[in-house]
């Protein structure tokens, strides 16, 4: 087939594959800027990273939940931080079209970096997907809120609320299990013609999360693992550890941010997410990042036993409020006692506030995730461009 594209030419495409089209550099390109200037930039970059992440660390948990770690608002700040770091990193790396990145040993690091970029893009997509699940849950919660807000409150409303909440809680708790996703809807599907059996499916049928848009063996935790697996701190000292250092820092930032996102938001196969990332403690900028990691890891250990769908604070609250409202609803009698009503109203208010946060925060969060996607893509393209200009075919770069 290729031959026909070239109208009778008998040249196989592979002849002019990249090996031929590579260019062996035999001239020395002088680096722009002095060594000193570069070192300064590097240090500044690392300092900024440290500063920004310290800022994230200091969101203290408080009762009114301002920017608790792993809340939607906090995630937004996290993404913002990432975007700032990324912008600075890019300036450092691509400053003056630095052709150093095409040469060893940097080119191997860059190649790994680009590989991480691709995985990051897939994770961004998975996160976007996961956000949709959250939206579904919010909607279920809103049914309950609406129902319980009716006055006067009748048994029907309470049952309705319970149904919605059961659905919600079931969906959240089963979200993470491998058996979820398509199977339930498929089961319902295959029973299509036998209407009777459908009734049994109804309680869990409609809150299935989106069917995965990637193949079933894609795993968020494996992606993160692969990304962090080859993170090796550059040996200190001169040579070209010049650029190796910011590459290492940025890689860690990238992996951490994605790790936090995957911990917080439901996405395909996150159950085996590692609870710690290999960041050496002695590096100055790493302190706050490690601090955050540890906090998140703690949460993870606490919650994961219950098989939760995501550490996102708002999800946790949905589940908690949902559960307690279900219990409350179980004790409903008509007409309800004032005490019962008061209790219900308090809980509904909490749930409602939670939903409001979700409503407000989800769209901007998604937009940010998409922005992260764009940035990574752009940087990747620019780096690839530089590599191509240098003409060297790097080791299999994606």
């Amino acid at each position, binding site marked *: 087939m290729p031959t026909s594209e*070239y109208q009778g030419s008998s040249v196989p495409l592979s*002849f*002019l594959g990249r090996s031929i*089209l590579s260019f062996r550099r035999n001239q020395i390109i002088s680096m722009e800027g002095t060594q000193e200037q570069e070192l300064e930039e590097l240090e500044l970059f690392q300092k900024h990273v440290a500063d920004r992440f310290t800022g994230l660390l200091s969101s203290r948990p408080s009762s009114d939940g301002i920017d608790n770690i792993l809340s939607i608002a906090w995630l937004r700040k996290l993404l913002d931080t990432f975007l700032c770091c990324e912008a600075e990193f890019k300036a450092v790396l691509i400053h003056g079209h630095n052709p150093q990145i095409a040469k060893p040993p940097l080119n191997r690091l860059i190649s790994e970096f680009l590989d991480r970029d691709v995985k990051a893009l897939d994770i961004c997509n998975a996160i976007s997907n996961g956000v949709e699940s959250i939206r579904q849950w919010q909607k279920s919660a809103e049914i309950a809120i609406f129902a319980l807000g009716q006055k006067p409150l009748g048994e029907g409303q309470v049952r309705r609320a319970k149904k919605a909440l059961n659905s919600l809680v079931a969906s959240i708790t089963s979200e993470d299990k491998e058996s979820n996703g398509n199977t339930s809807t498929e089961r319902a599907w295959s029973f299509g013609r036998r209407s009777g059996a459908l009734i049994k499916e109804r309680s869990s049928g409609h*809150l299935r999360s989106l069917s995965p848009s990637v193949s079933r063996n894609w795993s968020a935790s494996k992606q993160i693992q692969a990304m962090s697996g080859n993170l090796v701190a550059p040996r200190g000292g001169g040579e070209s550890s010049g650029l190796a250092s910011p590459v290492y820092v940025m890689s860690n930032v990238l992996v951490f941010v994605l790790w936090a996102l995957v911990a917080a938001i439901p996405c395909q196969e996150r159950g085996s997410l590692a609870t710690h990332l290999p960041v050496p403690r002695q590096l100055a900028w790493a302190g706050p990042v490690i601090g955050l990691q540890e906090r998140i890891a703690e949460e993870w250990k606490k919650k994961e036993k219950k098989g939760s769908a995501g550490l996102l604070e708002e999800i946790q609250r949905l589940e908690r409020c949902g559960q307690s409202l279900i219990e409350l609803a179980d004790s409903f009698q008509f007409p309800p006692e004032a005490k019962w009503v008061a209790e219900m109203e308090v809980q509904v208010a909490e749930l409602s506030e939670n939903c409001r946060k979700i409503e407000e925060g989800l769209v901007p969060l998604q937009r940010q995730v998409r922005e992260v996607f764009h940035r990574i893509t752009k940087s990747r*393209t620019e780096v690839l461009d530089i590599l191509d200009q240098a003409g060297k075919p790097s080791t299999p770069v994606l």
Partner: protein
Amino acid sequence: MEPPEKVAVKLDAAEKLIRRWDSTASEEARERMIFDGDLHEADRYLQAIDEIQRSMDSATVSDNQSKVSSAIQIAMTRLEDEFRNILITHTTPLEIDPNSSIRSSSRTETSGEFDDDEYPEENRERKEEEQEQEEEGEGEGSSTSYQTTNSIREIDLIPSEAIYDLRSIAERMISSGYLRECIQVYGSVRKSAVDASFRGLGVEKLSIGDVQRLEWEALETKIRRWIRAAKVCVRILFASEKRLCERIFDGLGPAADDACFMETVKAPAIQLFNFAEAISISRRSPEKLFKILDLHDSLSDLLPDVDLVFGSKSSESVRVQAAEIVSRLAEAARGILSEFENAVQREPSKIPVPGGTIHPLTRYVMNYISLISNYKQTLMELIVSKPSTGSRYSGDPTAPDIELPEPENRSPLALHLIWIMVILQFNLEGKSKHYKDASLSHIFLMNNVHYIVEKVKGSPELREMIGDDYLRKLTRKFRQAATSYERSTWLRVLYCLRDEGLHVSGSFSSGVSKSALRERFKSFNSIFEEVHRTQATWLVPDTQLREELRISILEKLIPAYRSFLGRFRNHIESGKHPEMYIKYSVDDLETAVLDFFEGHPVSQHLRKRSQLRNELS
């Protein structure tokens, strides 16, 4: 106004009916579906609900408030299940049969045909599509064309009776305040249907990582398939889903139809576009250009329909993503072209092509450019900047400092193509220097530049873009190379046949120095033999050019030899062993020249062969 007792009785009956169908309460209720059975049953049930709703609206009911709200809740739960059941029963995924039409279980309004097995090649495919667009309006019976999905066509995904039922149910649910539940049920079932249709259309679930890892050839096939699938998805599948939502939910609640539509298609749409996005960010390399352009064109073509189908505010992100992908693909195309130019400029192979024939680089580049001219329409729009003719790094010895032939009104695309040809030539000139034999390097250049010229002439679009001026310039170039070749080889040969130095003026013999003459003949013979042996292995692939070159050689060689022979043969023949010196007749030479540039070695001695020929003829 009915008397309250009558109202109460009706209410009571309604309530009983609803409770009868409470599936948590009775086995029978679980086994059967109201809307599957008797029409009247369904009607009665709905009327019962209406009755209860009416009673809720009026202020009279206060004590059985709870009972009534409870009844409504039971009814709504029931309706939810009925709704789901009707949807599932009447939904089948879209089927695309390679040989026939797109259909779902119900009657379709239009048909589209796919021929999945025959994949026409690049150029033809584009022309076929254009042909289809022309034949579009000519009816479905035409056996030579197949209609592709070029515009929105909605088909009935669910039969009308079912739609009527669904709408009746939705009405009640929404007016009872159960809009959210309704949307949820609808969305979950229809979304599964869309997913199933996707599978049927061959829309795959590939991650970006997957796409980067695949071989480009495999991706080309997937892109082709994707383009066809995307057209069906946007123009038929999504459009039909939208219409279905409208038919069921229009006017029933604030933006209910839009909410249902989004529930159904938003995620699948994003999944669909993810593939195109993954392609648009893949690593750039020249062979990807044309498929990327195909993808760009088809997605660009789809955009207006995407905008139409996803017109609401809530679906903005889908429109935005589609537009982003189109512009990324455009960027990719530009980047690839630029990278191609770099690659041509830097192609470093130093191994000289044996026989001085056409270099694979030349073929590749010229074929590539010809293909580009086929995509002229799109590329004219996409390529807006002039090629960067300056070398990227100062002092780069590999950059030609040739100025682009100054364009009067040439489009940027044309400038790029000319530039590519300029750098190709520059590269070829560099390569020609690797030949040890100067004559061969001239032949090489001649062959390659000639090939370029022929390629341009062979493509009207290309010719138009390049312009005749430049073409003439190239023609002069290869003719010059031919001339250089002739000088380089034949001057030596003809030098043997010159007059000077042969005449000796002296007292004893006026005339010719026999020894010098003999030397001349010997030189001539040996040089000619060497040239013959060597240059027979050289290749000028183009028949006409080969002929012309030979004729040109003969035009110079034969008269000179004939005249030389004529003037001096007597002197040789009058001496000893004339055959050692006059080895060849004019005919022999003519025959020998026929061997030149054939590309294979001659093994037999010249004269023997011509003797053989004479004997045989």
